[in-house]
């Protein structure tokens, strides 16, 4: 496994209309554009296989935006982000699951979307159900799930795709202690096999379990990059 992530001069721009709603460039031509803001600005970072890296910083500093850019969910407006390796991600509070579908249906949908053949995805459903520990809830609509249950489901499906790069946003903080241990074990397995784990959040103790390096983001740019304890101390002092 030779997973790598490289961002060069990465910029993600958000356009707003006059009522401060986010708009697309084409819509900006149809409506009067109000203002713009850079979620990430001239960001440079290189992550090599075997590295666990924590993204720390205040809310709105660009942690989620960077994770989404790495996942390919957001496309750079300037610069580039190059990712080598299969990506598994858990990037939002709803953990990428749709409320109207059951856990089983969501698992099948996500498994197919991450690239598993339909037959393989179907065959994996019972294993996914066991791993999530959701029991009978697996066949109930996700709208009846707690945030932690959604995160469990989302994580297990992401894990099932055998990712070489694992991206975790603050959602893993919604997990209970038993499942946090499972997440940490999965992260260590990926790291030991030469993969990458990028995790963002405010629970620094959790991040430290699988991140030796930290990136402190501030207003969309890198403020500090280095060993986890050093960067965290600098961040906490500044905060």
């Amino acid at each position, binding site marked *: 496994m030779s997973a790598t992530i490289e961002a060069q001069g990465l910029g993600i721009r958000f356009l707003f209309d006059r009522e401060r709603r*986010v708009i697309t460039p084409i*819509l900006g031509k149809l409506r009067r554009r109000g203002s713009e803001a850079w979620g990430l600005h001239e960001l440079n970072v290189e992550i090599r296989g075997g590295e666990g890296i924590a993204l720390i910083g205040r809310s709105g500093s660009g942690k989620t935006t960077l994770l*989404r850019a790495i996942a390919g*969910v957001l*496309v750079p407006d300037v610069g580039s982000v190059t990712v080598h390796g299969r990506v598994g991600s858990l*990037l*939002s509070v709803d953990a990428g699951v749709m409320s109207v579908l059951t856990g089983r249906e969501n698992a099948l949908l*996500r498994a197919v*979307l991450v690239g598993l053949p339909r037959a393989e995805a179907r065959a994996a459903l019972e294993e996914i159900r066991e791993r999530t520990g959701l029991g009978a809830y697996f066949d109930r609509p996700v709208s009846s799930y707690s945030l932690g249950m959604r995160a469990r489901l989302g994580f297990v499906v992401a894990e099932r795709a055998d990712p070489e790069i694992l991206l975790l946003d603050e959602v893993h903080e919604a997990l209970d202690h038993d499942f946090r241990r499972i997440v940490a074990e999965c992260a260590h397995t990926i790291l030991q096999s030469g993969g990458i784990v990028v995790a963002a959040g405010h629970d620094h103790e959790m991040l430290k379990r699988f991140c030796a390096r930290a990136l402190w983001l501030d207003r969309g740019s890198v403020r500090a990059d280095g060993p986890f304890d050093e960067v965290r101390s600098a961040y906490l002092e500044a905060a």
Partner: protein
Amino acid sequence: MFATGLMLEPFALLGIYLVFVAVVLNRPGTATGLSLACAVVPFQLVITTVTNALPSITTRRSIILNMTFNRVLIPIATTLTEVAVFGASFLLIALMMAIYGVGPTSSIAWLPIALAVNVILALGLAFPAALFGLWFRELRVFAISFIRTLFFLAPSLVPHSVTSGVAYNLLKLNPLTGLFDTYRDVFLYGRTPPAWALLYPAGFGLLLLAVTLPVYRREQHQFAKVVE
């Protein structure tokens, strides 16, 4: 329950329009119920596709924010989902044929082509509808009203053949007209649909696809910013 409601909707619409045409307008024609069904059924695919395509991007917010996949699949999936439900509404045509004693003829061979045209038109509308629903969320209801207006600006309640002159030709500009005429030719009149009735709605759908698909493909990279 929801799917059952969708399947029953054409039956309810047909009942309302039948009362309107036969009682209020007092224009009972040849097999009025079957003629109406030949408009209601193909329109059902168009209107349900547009209605569901309008919020299709925002309702998939959770997966759009979490993973990368070809977002072009969203309007396609919306259309195909409606095609599956649409199949059941053909019971309405079969029922009307039985009630009016109209048997199938060799023109039924044109049905697969009529269906293909119907799907192309619905798919062609699904892409602009998805973008419109994302760009102008507050105007979604007007988009549905616009499509419903097209239904009444086509020979939906009365056959195209009862119009003449300028009105006859103007009605042809509406892509739904060719579709309704085709269904009536296949199920009611038992004759080969004229070429324009198939080509115009199909061409209209393909033109919409040709224009809006490149825009959609460009915009898909921005969806995660806008649905947040």
